[in-house]
């Protein structure tokens, strides 16, 4: 298991390098030149030149990539050392805007707010994480039982209804569902507040930026209730698609398990229906379900872009949306990189968790 884990971690390196190259080249996909794209149409040419200079866009592509990965300070120091080694007389480099490279955790700065992307990320990531976890929770506690019941009562009214709704669920644009839910629950019924994570009149000391956790730590019951009221509708909306997929997946996996010989044996030896379904079938049907739960992380992260923009949820999804509007390319670049990284790591964890759940799988 340990050897397999290490091998998989090593195999991840080329993928991550590839991801970084794609994210790096992203800026070079911009038609014309990122510097001109960032400016308004009638901006003076010197300004574009200065941006180009500042972003290092006038250097060769491979140098730009090295700077992106290692930082301009490292690259400049290395260039200086190399020149000295070759016996050239050069001035030591002066770095005006130090950038440390993504390998050292520096994602650069936002063009709009001038904040470092990492510090913004620390604030916004908890919001998205909280929303995604709540969505996954909703999806699992409704989707999995719905799938189990559908499989046991195959072709019954419950089965047809829940399968119909799960098909509708995957066919719906979630931002549309979000808007409809917002209109119904916030505008018409006034049951829940509209947008953001917390009411303006609620005081909460931010410890971790996970509001539910913060309100628990500080024992702030009022804030906990308010945060939950803000969370519930966005979480259900974001959870709809995973819920539908989970219900379908659990159903087909359960049906397959229920058709196995050992289920007939279990029935034959007189076990109760409950023991057969929960103890024998469900245990074996869970493996593909766990995979699906893991694979939904990618969906949750990109679905967050749409859900968060509807509900003004201050997470990374809304941040991507805002930076698209303001053409804040470093932010789009940085967040895309982080999301891809999370996605790759989660997929690895899902793979490794097979061995824990299913003793038949033994990684060499």
């Amino acid at each position, binding site marked *: 298991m340990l050897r397999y884990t290490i091998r998989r971690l090593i195999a991840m390196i080329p993928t991550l390098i590839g991801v970084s190259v794609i994210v790096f080249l992203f800026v070079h996909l911009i038609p014309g030149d990122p510097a001109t794209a960032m400016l308004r149409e009638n901006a003076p040419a010197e300004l574009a030149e200065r941006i180009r200079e500042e972003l290092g866009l006038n250097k060769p592509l491979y140098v730009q990539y090295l700077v992106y990965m290692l930082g301009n300070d490292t690259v400049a120091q290395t260039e200086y050392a190399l020149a000295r080694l070759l016996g050239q007389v050069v001035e030591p480099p002066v770095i005006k805007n130090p950038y440390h490279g993504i390998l050292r955790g520096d994602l650069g700065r936002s063009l709009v707010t001038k904040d470092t992307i990492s510090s913004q990320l620390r604030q916004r990531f908890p919001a998205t994480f909280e929303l995604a976890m709540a969505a996954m929770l909703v999806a699992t506690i409704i989707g999995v039982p719905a799938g189990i019941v559908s499989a046991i009562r195959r072709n019954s009214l419950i089965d047809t209804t829940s399968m119909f709704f799960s098909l509708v669920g995957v066919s719906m644009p979630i931002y549309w569902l979000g*808007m409809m839910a917002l209109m119904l629950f916030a505008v018409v019924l006034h049951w829940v507040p509209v947008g953001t994570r917390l009411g303006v009149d609620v005081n909460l000391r931010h410890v971790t930026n996970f509001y539910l956790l913060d309100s628990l730590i500080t024992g702030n019951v009022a804030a906990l209730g308010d945060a939950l009221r803000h969370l519930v509708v966005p979480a259900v909306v974001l959870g709809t698609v995973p819920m539908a997929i989970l219900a379908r997946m659990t159903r087909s996996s359960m049906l397959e398990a229920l058709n196995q010989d050992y289920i007939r044996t279990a029935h034959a030896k007189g076990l109760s229906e409950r023991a057969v379904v929960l103890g024998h079938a469900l245990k074996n049907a869970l493996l593909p379900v766990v995979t699906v739960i893991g694979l939904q992380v990618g969906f949750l992260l990109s679905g967050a872009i749409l859900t968060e923009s509807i509900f003004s949820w201050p997470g990374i999804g809304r941040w991507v949306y805002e930076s698209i509007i303001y053409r804040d390319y470093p932010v789009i670049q940085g967040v895309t990189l982080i999301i891809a990284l999370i996605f790759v790591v989660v997929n690895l964890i899902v793979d490794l968790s097979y061995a824990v759940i299913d003793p038949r799988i033994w990684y060499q």
Partner: protein
Amino acid sequence: MVALREFSMAVSAETLTGFVPRRQASLWGDAWLRLRRSSNARVGMAIMLTFVLIGIFIPLVMPYNPRTDSDLLNRLKPPAQGRLFGTDDQGRDLFRRVLHGANISLRVGLLSVTLALVTGSIIGLTAGFLGGLTDNVAMRFMDIMLAFPATLLAIGIVAARGPGLNNTMLAIGVVQIPVYARIARSATLSIKEQDYMLAARCIGVGTLRRIFRHVLPNSLSPIIVQGTLSIATAILEAAALGFLGLGAQPPTPEWGAMLADGYKYLTIGAWWVLLFPGVAIMLTVLGFNLLGDGLRDALDPRLRHD
């Protein structure tokens, strides 16, 4: 002697009757029969046909110029007689715009899926057939693309290339390429080991001909199933990009862009501006999903003669 002859005739007659083959249905004929028997697939087919017919014929019989269409005296009117779906903030008839949206979604669905299907299948077939370094390099590259959530990658491509319908189609097509490459490759790997492939090689059939005349037709069914499901995804993602302001630009009657327009009027309770374009997206996507599911069941050889 006579007895023996009679016996042998009896045997052959019985052998014959015993072995008279039932009318042998081809894979496709068989699949078609089972597709027609599934009620889900029938509903899916009906929705798909309606959508395709609207998409093709509405622009012909009901020409529409979104640039000149506005009636400011009738802004945001709820549905009533004569305006089935109500009007939007420019006083435009939503019924007409939703119908015209079908053409745009149809184009996005077909073009982006064609791009992904053709490119992906060629990559997958070649990688699977040639194996070795080609396979490794191509599939590692596909893995890297799959390291991004699809919608995010599409958003990234369009954000960089600039908003618009063409870039939307390009982005949605590109992000789907790895899916087809993987399907085509795994089908190719299993077909490659078949005896008829060895036979073809023995009689001197060239590589390209073996790929396109033998491997491709035999790997088509999973690709077709995926193609149908991908049209659903493509329509959904194009609408999402349109909603984010990255896809088709106003005043184009694209469903996602129409939803983005209507979003502004959510708080004043103008539900019709949001409801109808959303339902249009949902129904169309549902149709392709139902059909794709039905096709998968119909083409699955394990389910044959059930």
